[in-house]
């Protein structure tokens, strides 16, 4: 690692727009790795996707993560507004942004969304893989777009000041949301469909609409989204694969619209993967061995400075590197949260 890359990385605000680690795995040791990796802010998924998805469980999940981070006030801070991330950087703390990867916990009641906001929710992904009251996920063969309730939910998300997240959302539903939203939108953890066709990856139609909405896509680090099945299963993926997806967005849509959204879960076990795939069998076809599931150069927080080095080596300017590392997402936060 070059010293200039190292210096630039340590100076920068680094935002990981999705980490799927469970709350109890954010141990002091793991947090130390995150700090060493120079990570400033992380979006965490507070409500599990394979559990019960009602209002009480939504509250429980948000409170669980809140309690966990609040128990380590010298290391962690929970983000309520953009300034909290800047403060965290200054004070050497890790900033955690509370998010959800599905709106099922709001049931049929927009009030519940308001309650979640009061409890600290700041990022809302509107569907996971399947159809819900709001609209369709990316695994549904037939996506009819945002429902009436879904349109109300998007308006409420804008009104409250939640970041609207479209990862996992079906194409038609995502395009509807992109059109309707009055604030910038993100795909927190996705890859590029033109490079690798996968139902979880984002089409150029969506990327174009995202750019028009001044949004940002966080590039994910799951091998199966980055490269073809044979390679993913044989040898997983490396930094080069990930950078190719970043390049695609930067070149075609502009460096202002891409960031980091790794979608890595620490200490993921085979049982956890089996449980997810059992609930979402659309994920099953892939059978990627656990050791190749996440990109080998991005599967642990202390490896993240490699991104800075890789981008600089590719010829990105320092200011563009800082945009990709975190300033693009900070722009979204400022516009949505103030």
């Amino acid at each position, binding site marked *: 690692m070059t010293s200039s890359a190292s210096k630039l990385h340590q100076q920068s605000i680094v935002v990981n727009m999705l980490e799927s680690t469970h709350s109890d795995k954010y141990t002091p040791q793991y947090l130390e790795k995150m700090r060493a990796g120079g990570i400033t802010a992380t979006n965490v998924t507070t409500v599990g996707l394979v559990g019960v998805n009602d209002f009480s469980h939504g509250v429980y999940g948000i409170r669980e993560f809140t309690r966990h981070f609040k128990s380590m006030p010298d290391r962690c801070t929970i983000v309520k507004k953009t300034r909290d991330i800047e403060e965290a950087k200054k004070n050497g703390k890790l900033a955690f942004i509370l998010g959800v990867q599905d709106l099922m916990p709001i049931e049929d009641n927009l009030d519940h969304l308001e309650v979640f906001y*009061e409890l600290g929710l700041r990022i809302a992904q509107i569907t996971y893989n399947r159809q819900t009251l709001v609209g369709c996920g990316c695994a549904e063969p037939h996506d009819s777009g945002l429902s009436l309730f879904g349109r109300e939910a998007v308006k409420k998300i804008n009104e409250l000041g939640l970041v609207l997240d479209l990862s996992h959302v079906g194409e038609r539903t995502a395009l509807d949301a992109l059109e309707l939203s009055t604030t910038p939108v993100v795909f927190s953890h996705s890859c590029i469909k033109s490079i690798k066709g996968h139902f979880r990856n984002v089409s150029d139609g969506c990327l174009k609409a995202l750019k028009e909405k001044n949004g940002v896509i966080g590039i994910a680090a799951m091998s199966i989204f980055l490269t073809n099945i044979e390679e993913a299963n044989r040898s997983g993926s490396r930094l080069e694969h990930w950078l190719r997806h970043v390049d695609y967005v930067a070149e075609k849509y502009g460096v202002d619209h891409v960031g980091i959204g790794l979608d890595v879960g620490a200490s993921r076990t085979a049982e956890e993967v089996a449980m997810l795939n059992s609930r979402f069998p659309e994920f099953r076809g892939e059978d990627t061995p656990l050791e190749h599931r996440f990109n080998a150069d991005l599967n642990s927080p202390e490896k993240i400075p490699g991104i800075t080095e890789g981008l600089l080596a590719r010829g990105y300017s320092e200011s563009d590197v800082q945009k990709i590392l975190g300033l693009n997402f900070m722009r979204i936060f400022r516009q949505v949260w103030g």
Partner: protein
Amino acid sequence: MLHKSAVVINTLDSTHAEKINSGFVGKQLAGGVTAINVTCVDVIGINDFSHGVYGLKEFRRTFAKVDPERTMVVRKTSDIPAAKKEGKLGVILGMQDLRPIEDNLDHLEVFHELGLRIGQLTYNRQNLIGCGCAEPSNGPLSLFGRQVVRTMNDLGIVVDLAHVGERTALDAIEVSSKPLIFSHCDARGLRTHFRNITDACLKAVAAKGGVVGVAAMSRFLVYDCVTRGSNLDDWLRHLDYMVEMIGPDHVGIGLDVGQSRTEEDVNRLNTRFPEFLKDLPPLSLRFNSDLNTPDKTPKITEALVKRGYSEADIRNILGLNFLRVFEQVWG
């Protein structure tokens, strides 16, 4: 005038959300009322967590909708003098049963974040926390109840013992590290009724620095409520009794009057709580005739002056006693 310049706190206005309108707010302000405690969850409705959340949101929404300029939700003590200064009605969000926390202390914290500032431990019946005043068993504060009281102390939610059974109330007073209130009760020493508080409870809550809000329901004030209802003198007699027993620093106003109450409302309550059917006056006599609307509140001050209470004591009774408790509990 003394009443106009005083902070006046009524620790229970039981008007239902759907009956709250701009006129209601106007009457409170005309009566010089600074702040009211409102009951956010219907005691005869479903009492689970979701309904607790819903009730808190509903009351906030209602006031914001019907009169945003003249109302404000009270989250900390300084909000009350601020409301007075700005000519607004301070709304303190309360519950008359903590069933909505179910068996989960964290729900208390969630409610606190949503604005809950007063929590009555039980209504008339037994719940996970302890026994209500209508239970013949007169059971104690449960293990969970003890945790609830301590959590309320930590969070800054006033522990309210109106409707709570004697044993549970005395236990709560013992466990609590902060002052407690009986938000809307009358003296059992003057009128025997399971809803009225015993001398033992009066003394215990005062010793802890707490305050009792004197209620204005005819049934709790006098024996012959069915034939004549009640009037200001009946209410003042209970206030005098309490002041004499525990001093003017531990008594206040907690009327327990609900505006636009209908026969239907009362029937639904009494069907769920048949213990209320005894000595039931007609609707027109249900609430004290001199205190049954908020704009009549100045009558209290007038009467206390006539009775020879000092100005300082009157201000304390009107609201500063409760304000003191709020400061010690909420900060």
